[in-house]
């Protein structure tokens, strides 16, 4: 028997959103998505495309961020981006304003000795120069905000927890360092408050001896204590592995990681030769992978509730990859649409294909599970 919607007793299906099980997405998926968006941003100076990327990233962040302490900093990244754009413009104004023919105004020019030929301070400021600086600054700011989004969406410490066994020690060191920073701020605040009790804030506070020294002593004490606590809880227990294997592992991992770094640089920098990009990255990944597998045998540990990598993670990660791939291909085949001309000046247009591609990046706002509310 079928129930009609208007009959009494009909229970409406809960909406798709509320039916979805809240859980934290694997931090790696968020990072791949964010890196994909960042790669796209790095390939274009088109302000309209960059703004679309920013809008997509901001939308996803507002839809999927948690209430955890690390999720509160997105606005800080936005302000930081603004700072980058402003400083870029300021330097252009001061140092090399004359770039095109549309002179807006003239700043008083500073006469420099002949030694500094080619460097100009002040003088004419052109629209082209300012626009170039603005585009460049916006690109850098977008890159930064994409990475900021990853930091906001994924607990950086959980990402470090997912590092392979061979990098376990490095991961723990980084985790502890990440904990230390807020602790330093906390003890600085506590000691400042305590100074007030001694009535010393009225006069000039000797920052170094009165705040910094106690904060550092405090931090040192804590680190020693933490090290002792970690040791007595079994941190650093290792299985015995022959020296030769250890050396091979180390070499493989380091060579691999260098390869990965060069590969990523090649991918992000449009002007470097093609071979530095994908092939280098692939070789690096293989080397590092073998190294990690070998090195992982040394560390005997297990993982409590490792983050899942299921369909949602694939969807989020692939959407980021898709954005990066399409923009990357367009950058090779039709670079002019991604980099609006400044000489002669023209309005930037919104090219269809890259825009659609970037819009794929908004999918994680729906395909990722809703965050756990505490």
């Amino acid at each position: 028997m079928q129930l009609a919607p208007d009959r009494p007793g009909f229970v409406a299906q809960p909406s798709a959103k509320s039916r979805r099980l809240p859980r934290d997405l694997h931090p790696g998926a968020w990072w791949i998505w964010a890196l994909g968006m960042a790669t796209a941003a790095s390939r274009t100076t088109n302000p309209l495309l960059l703004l679309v990327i920013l809008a997509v990233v901001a939308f996803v962040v507002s839809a999927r961020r948690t209430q955890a302490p690390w999720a509160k900093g997105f606005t800080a990244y936005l302000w930081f981006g603004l700072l980058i754009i402003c400083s870029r413009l300021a330097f252009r104004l001061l140092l090399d304003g004359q770039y095109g023919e549309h002179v807006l105004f003239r700043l008083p020019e500073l006469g420099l000795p002949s030694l500094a030929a080619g460097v100009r301070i002040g003088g004419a400021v052109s629209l082209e120069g300012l626009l170039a600086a603005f585009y460049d600054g916006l690109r850098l700011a977008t890159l930064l905000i994409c990475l900021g989004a990853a930091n906001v969406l994924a607990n950086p410490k959980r990402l470090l927890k997912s590092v392979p066994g061979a990098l376990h020690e490095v991961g723990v060191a980084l985790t502890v360092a990440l904990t230390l920073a807020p602790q330093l701020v906390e003890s600085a605040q506590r000691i400042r408050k305590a100074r007030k009790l001694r009535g010393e804030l009225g006069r000039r506070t000797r920052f170094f001896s009165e705040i910094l020294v106690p904060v550092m002593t405090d931090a040192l004490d804590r680190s020693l204590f933490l090290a002792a606590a970690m040791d007595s809880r079994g941190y650093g227990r290792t299985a015995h592995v022959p020296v030769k294997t250890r050396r091979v592992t180390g070499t493989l991992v380091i060579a691999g990681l260098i390869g990965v770094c060069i590969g990523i640089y090649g991918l992000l920098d449009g002007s470097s030769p093609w071979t530095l990009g994908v092939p280098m990255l692939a070789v690096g990944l293989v080397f590092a992978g073998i190294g990690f597998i070998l090195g992982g045998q040394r560390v005997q540990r297990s993982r409590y509730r490792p983050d899942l990598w299921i369909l949602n993670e694939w969807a989020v990660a692939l959407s980021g990859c898709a954005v990066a791939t399409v923009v990357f291909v367009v950058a090779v085949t039709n670079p002019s649409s991604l980099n609006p001309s400044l000489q002669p000046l023209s309005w930037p247009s919104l090219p269809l294909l890259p825009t659609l591609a970037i819009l794929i990046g908004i999918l994680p706002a729906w395909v990722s599970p809703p965050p756990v509310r505490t």
Partner: protein
Amino acid sequence: MIRFSQVSLTYPHATRPTLDSVDLSIDEGELCLVVGQTGVGKSTLLGAINGLVPHFTGGTLSGRVTVNGRDTSTHPPRELADLIGVVGQDPLAGFVTDTVEEELAYAMEQLAIAPAVMRKRVEETLDLLGIADLRNRPIRSLSGGQQQRVAIGSVLTAHPRVLVLDEPTSALDPTASEEVLAAITRLVHDLGVTVVIAEHRLERVLQYADRVISVQSDGRVVSGPPGQILATSSVAPPVVRLGRLAGWSPLPLSVRDARRVAADLRIELKKISAGPAPVASPTSASSPTSASSPTVLASTALVASKLTVRYEEVVAVARVDVELLSGEIVALMGRNGSGKSSLLWALQGAGARDGGSVTVQGKDPSTLPPSQARGLVGLVPQTPTDLLYLATVQAECTQADLDAEQPAGTCAQILQRIVAGIDPLTHPRDLSEGQKLALVLAIQLCASPSVVLLDEPTRGLDYTAKEHLTQLLQELAARGHAIVVSTHDVEFVASTADRVMVIAAGEIVADGPTAEVVVASPAFAPQVAKILSPEPWLTVEDVASALRSAP
């Protein structure tokens, strides 16, 4: 299980060994209480069990320490992690991760325990310690008592055969520490875990102990059944001292044992207090200041009305009215996180305040510059060392004189009066807990504030140091200072305070004379009150003076 044979330990640059030829054997399933005065090497003894001493601290250890057959000289602490769980004094300093659940799993991850087992053990431990509702909380947002329970849980998950606890309840309120101790005794009885525990407040642990290890000041160690060791020990809880006073044998160790033999004493005391001698009435004996200087009590030292402190959504202090009289000692009690510290800081004026007013000598300290505010209200914070930053005690004193605009030598004189014999060239960090507290108190007294606030000063103090603090506070009160002490230590409150305020969730729920407030509550009642109730006696000293004055 744990065996020390001829163990001596000498720290670098030390003139004498901290532990001197210690022979000790602790069997499986024993709960051992380590007692001794501050700084005699209790922590060293505990650290030697899992090899943190000397692997981590340095020093020369001779002799052998073995745990379950493993020698600590060949096994560093990490290789003993599956066998020994260690919980330190400051839980926050030992946390590696940032949420409760991850912290509980950390040790198991290091020991490569299978994920399914980990899941199960985390749940069991959450329940065992009653922290299941905190599982997703960031550890830094928890109160001290909750943090301590998480710290104990984080070592329990590894299912160690030996548990080493260094003052696990020093930061906890009476109820929370009962819970922690109950959990520990359950481990001993149900699972046969061997527990070695150091604690200053013996009254909390003694009744559960199978054996007491007394560390002497010369580095020697005596161990034996609690009754035997405590009969002659220099540190003893009120129940034991009452037993010694009344000549009970065998010496009672718990309130229950004592109550069963105390019937005669109760009758005797009832006769005395009903008798004509007014000196012996319990209330006057418990508050010598009010008896000696009734005139000082008349003037009001501080009035606070509708004081409110909030941190975003959390209301720490909710419209609290406080009135302090000159010459009285007020104890501020309440569970961890109930707003004690917030209230004290708001009264001083240095802390946040979101409403209400504070008036001291007609002025509001929070509107004055800090240098003048401390002349009205002096606060000794929970971590007194935050106030110290110079290289020697002498330098700190000189600086304090300058800050308070007092003639040179004032602070040093006050310090001399509080604790005699501190070498002025010592680094403040090398002082004992009691001496540090004394130094900070001296610095604050330099500005001669009419109100003195102390935030948990009894933490880490042994009985002698606490007695000393009591005398000192009574002297200050006799000079006309109004004093507020926040503390969890009911025995200290019983022997020191004239009045008790109990704060819960930011509101004052009880305020009255010590005898009335503490005797009425089972959690806050001192041991003597529990033993002698319904007779309203609070301290062994009261009972002793009453018995002396009786015919």
